[in-house]
């Protein structure tokens, strides 16, 4: 029933959107506002119908309608509610329906309250946006319908792929689709501007949509990268996979368009550039969808092959021919009235920036299509791996960073050296300081040092620019410096939002240099209790375990991590096995993030008896800067997007606007907080423990123990003697086994500079006294009443025994019972040395 309703809703939406496009077109031909209103109503209805279709699919998921193929392939009865919701877009058919809905909704939004500026462009924009909605709805209905039925009804669905059960993957797809959908706006407005011969200010009309699209794509890419880092367990976050590239390319052109729009606004220039960038942003969205769903590109995360390819190709060709025909027809409108006369000007820098964004996009496109291109050119297929992309795009990204640093130093006109005063010195300080700090921190690769210099230059100029403006403002308005700084942010949001974005970019650049130019990766086999050095770190395997957790089996390893001999943290990487989902296994990495570098550990395998594990260890320098920079970057984008206060409005309207703005701000902050939580959220396989066991060779933690006879014993006062510190309890059977051996060894070594200390863990004094009598124990024994000593020694159970040499360092550690033979062997090694 739901399936039929869903398909009918899709069909009605298709017809309505088609009618909307025709009505809008007719309103232009006839100059009749009634047709325009009808077209607008049709666009609203199409959005409502697709929204209902999406709700029908949601209802099908919630009521386990497994006769619907899409539901049975992406859900199961025991799937939690939030995953059933996210399964809506977990596959191709559902994601296309979501896309169609968002496209229709967005079209309705654009039409709902056009600004005075936008009004002349709206009729043509309605036609184009409705045609795009028609295309996506038709593809969904005829080629990839999520409501398609199975011939037999399965008892249960296949469930959602465990790799997709991550907050990053729940938010990533809708964010990307929102971005894609909104990139239709600059395209539609650019085309409408040509058709109505009003090319001057379409970029500023479309700016809010472009910026929002860019923001959503940016957040989507960031969450996707974080998901890869947290879930895929290969130590990286970006693999230059064609599917990743498909999302990156429109984001790059949208970034360029935002810069071009500033220039068109300020200087009336860059007109051709801006139209081209709007067209290509939209084409790249279609191209990305085409490549990921047509099976043309081999990718590990492409969708299944489908027969949509030719239709997407046809729609792309149509878009290309249509837009280029318009550009040629109205080429005179696109001639820029101002010419760039030197590159050492702000205009020149903007031009170079746009050019390099374009060449990066082309490079990524060439890399994604390299097998096809090389086969066509030379008959041999070459494939571009991550190294190819890093080496081709790396220098170009470096050039952009350099431009970012140089641009604020330059004025409008060539040879405006006046601006250099007060700006050059901090820029150079940044350019020298950052590489020096990086070199001291261990970065030796000259290329990465050049990168740090560029980033330092950019940081130096950005901060100086800000400071100079704040100082000027505070002098001018006689306010404090901080107030002036805040006022700058709230007054000229576009400019200062842009600066914040650039600061975020600089932080991301640091992260990119660190993670891509100096990563460290190794594999190690760890035996229980053995300390293994990896770079600056020492890893000790504490224990392994296996347990059922919901619908999967979890095999985990507990690893103590030390750095420079000090206990750092305990990591718990695990392998999850899903018997209900094709027996798929997911290696969930454990991560210790730190500003300087992340320690990232993946559990590869566990031996049959659990006494040994194979782990992959990655040390990723400056990885935190990627996520930190990402958040700064997004905050800047939100700031730039935020409308400036409207002083001109009458009081009640202004008050309502202010209320709406604060509500919106709260929503955006919540979104950013959610993004931050998804990135740093609770636990990445780290276990909180106050301390770990001291490593062999490191100083034993000092303690003072009150003995059973009332006297006290302090470990540091035993310096010069060898100490055997034994943690035990009367309730522990293995402890019972080892007590005679301890007493025997103590008797043999007493008086030879050896002291034994029994530290009793979580026990009753009477029970301990009984034991002392029963086993005739004569060495010092006391109760660790509040468990502090055990905590400082990081013991994970009893018995554990530490042999401390004459200089107070740990010489040997035993986890579990120790035998007299073992102790004698170890004592012979340290006594009398």
């Amino acid at each position, binding site marked *: 029933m739901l399936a039929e309703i869903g398909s009918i809703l899709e069909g009605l939406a298709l017809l309505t959107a088609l009618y909307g496009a025709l009505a809008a077109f007719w309103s232009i031909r006839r100059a009749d506002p009634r047709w325009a209103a009808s077209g607008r109503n049709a666009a609203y209805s199409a959005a409502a119908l697709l929204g209902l279709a999406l709700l029908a699919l949601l209802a099908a998921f919630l009521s386990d309608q497994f006769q619907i193929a899409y539901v049975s*392939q992406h859900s199961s009865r025991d799937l939690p509610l939030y995953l059933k919701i996210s399964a809506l877009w977990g*596959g*191709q058919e559902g994601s296309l329906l979501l896309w169609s809905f968002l496209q229709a909704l967005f079209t309705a939004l654009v039409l709902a309250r056009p600004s005075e500026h936008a009004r002349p462009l709206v009729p043509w924009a309605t036609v184009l946006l409705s045609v795009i909605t028609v295309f996506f709805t038709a593809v969904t209905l005829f080629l990839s319908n999520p409501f398609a039925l199975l011939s037999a009804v399965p008892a249960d669905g296949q469930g959602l*792929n465990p*790799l997709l059960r991550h907050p990053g993957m729940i938010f990533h797809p809708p964010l990307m689709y929102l971005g894609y959908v909104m990139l239709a706006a600059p395209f539609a407005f650019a085309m409408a501007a040509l058709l109505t011969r009003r090319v001057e200010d379409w970029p500023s009309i479309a700016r809010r949509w472009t910026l929002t699209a860019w923001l959503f794509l940016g957040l989507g890419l960031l969450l996707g990268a974080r998901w*890869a880092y947290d879930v*895929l367990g*290969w130590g*990286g976050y970006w*693999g230059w996979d064609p599917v990743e590239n498909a999302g990156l390319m429109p984001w790059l052109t949208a970034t360029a368009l935002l810069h071009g729009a500033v220039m068109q606004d300020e200087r009336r220039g860059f007109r051709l550039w801006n139209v081209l960038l709007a067209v290509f942003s939209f084409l790249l969205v279609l191209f990305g969808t085409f490549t990921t769903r047509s099976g*043309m590109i*081999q*990718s*590990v*995360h492409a*969708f*299944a*092959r489908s027969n949509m390819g030719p239709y997407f190709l046809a729609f792309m060709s149509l878009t290309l021919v249509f837009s280029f025909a318009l550009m040629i027809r109205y080429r005179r409108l696109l001639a820029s009235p101002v*010419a*760039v*006369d*030197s*590159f050492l000007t702000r205009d*020149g820098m903007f*031009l*170079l920036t746009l*050019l*390099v964004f374009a*060449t990066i996009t*082309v*490079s990524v496109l*060439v890399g994604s299509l*390299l*097998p096809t291109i*090389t086969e066509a050119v030379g008959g041999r*297929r*070459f*494939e*571009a*791996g*991550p*190294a*190819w992309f890093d*080496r*081709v795009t790396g*220098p*170009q990204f470096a*050039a952009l960073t350099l431009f970012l640093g140089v641009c604020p130093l330059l004025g409008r006109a060539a040879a405006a050296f006046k601006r250099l005063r007060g700006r050059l010195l901090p820029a150079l300080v940044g350019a020298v300081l950052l590489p020096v700090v990086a070199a001291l921190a261990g970065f030796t690769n000259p290329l990465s040092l050049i990168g740090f210099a560029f980033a330092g230059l950019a940081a130096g100029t950005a901060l100086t620019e800000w400071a100079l403006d704040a100082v000027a403002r505070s002098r001018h308005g006689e306010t404090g410096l901080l107030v002036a700084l805040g006022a700058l942010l709230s007054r000229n949001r576009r400019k200062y939002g842009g600066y914040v974005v650039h600061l975020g970019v600089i932080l991301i650049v640091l992260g990119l240099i660190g993670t891509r130019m100096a990563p460290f990766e190794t*594999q190690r*086999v760890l035996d229980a209790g053995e300390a293994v050095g990896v770079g600056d770190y020492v890893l000790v395997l504490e224990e392994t375990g296996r347990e059922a957790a919901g619908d999967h089996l979890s095999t985990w390893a507990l690893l103590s991590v030390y750095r420079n001999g000090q206990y750092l943290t305990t990591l718990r990487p695990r392998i999850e096995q899903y018997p209900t989902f*094709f027996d*798929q*296994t*997911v*290696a969930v990495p454990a991560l210790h993030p730190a500003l300087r570098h992340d320690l990232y550990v993946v559990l*590869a*395998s566990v*031996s049959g008896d659990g006494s040994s594990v*194979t782990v*992959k260890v990655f040390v990723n320098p400056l990885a935190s800067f990627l996520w930190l920079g990402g958040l700064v970057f997004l905050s800047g984008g939100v700031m730039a997007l935020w409308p400036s206060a409207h002083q001109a409005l009458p009081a009640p309207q202004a008050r309502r606007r202010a209320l709406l703005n604060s509500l919106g701000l709260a929503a955006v902050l919540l979104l950013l907080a959610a993004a931050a939580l998804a990135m740093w959220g609770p636990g990445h396989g780290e276990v909180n423990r106050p301390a770990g066991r001291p490593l062999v060779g490191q100083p034993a933690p000092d303690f003072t123990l009150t003995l059973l006879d009332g006297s006290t014993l302090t470990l540091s006062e035993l310096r010069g003697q060898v100490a055997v510190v034994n943690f035990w309890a009367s309730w522990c059977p293995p402890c019972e086994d080892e007590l005679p051996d301890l007493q025997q060894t103590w008797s043999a070594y007493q008086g030879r500079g050896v002291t034994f200390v029994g530290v009793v863990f979580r026990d009753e004094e009477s029970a301990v006294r009984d034991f002392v009598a029963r086993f005739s124990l004569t060495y010092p024994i006391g109760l660790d009443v509040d468990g502090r000593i055990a905590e400082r020694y990081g013991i994970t159970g009893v018995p554990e025994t530490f042999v401390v040499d004459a200089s107070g360092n740990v010489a040997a550690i035993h986890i579990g019972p120790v035998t007299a033979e073992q102790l004698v062997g170890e004592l012979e090694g340290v006594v009398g040395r």
Partner: protein
Amino acid sequence: MGGKTKAIIAGLLIVAAVVYLIVTNTGSTAHYFLTVEEIQALGDQARGRNITVSGAVLGETIVYDPSIPRVTFTIVQVPGDPQEVERAGGLAAVLHAAVNDPTAPRLEVVYNDVRPDLLVNEAQAIIRGQLGEDGRFYADEVLLKCPSRYEEEIPAQAGP
């Protein structure tokens, strides 16, 4: 020299630099896309360059030594052209036919890494690496897909 000429020259310089980057890196770091059959046919000529080879995993040949760790396995020829795969009845059918064809060309792969989860019989392996002196293929990176198991592919990356 006019502003326009300068702009064009600077633009051309940047474009030329990018073309240079693309061409040289395609020669040096890009991977030569070959099928198992083509590697066998090239023999010595295939040595010493980056190669991407795709093939069907032969389940019974998988040997894993976790102490190094190293996994060795054999892959069987599958066509490199997606259209040819489509004509032969889709990827799952092609992979199934390949592992059951004793006459199809084969290639032994050595991968010094932990055994990937999806390394199973009839999986499609896309392997980046180099052909060794001993005629075995030394993998830097192994990507696996099991089309018979999922309608849609999800990332299953091992390496780089």
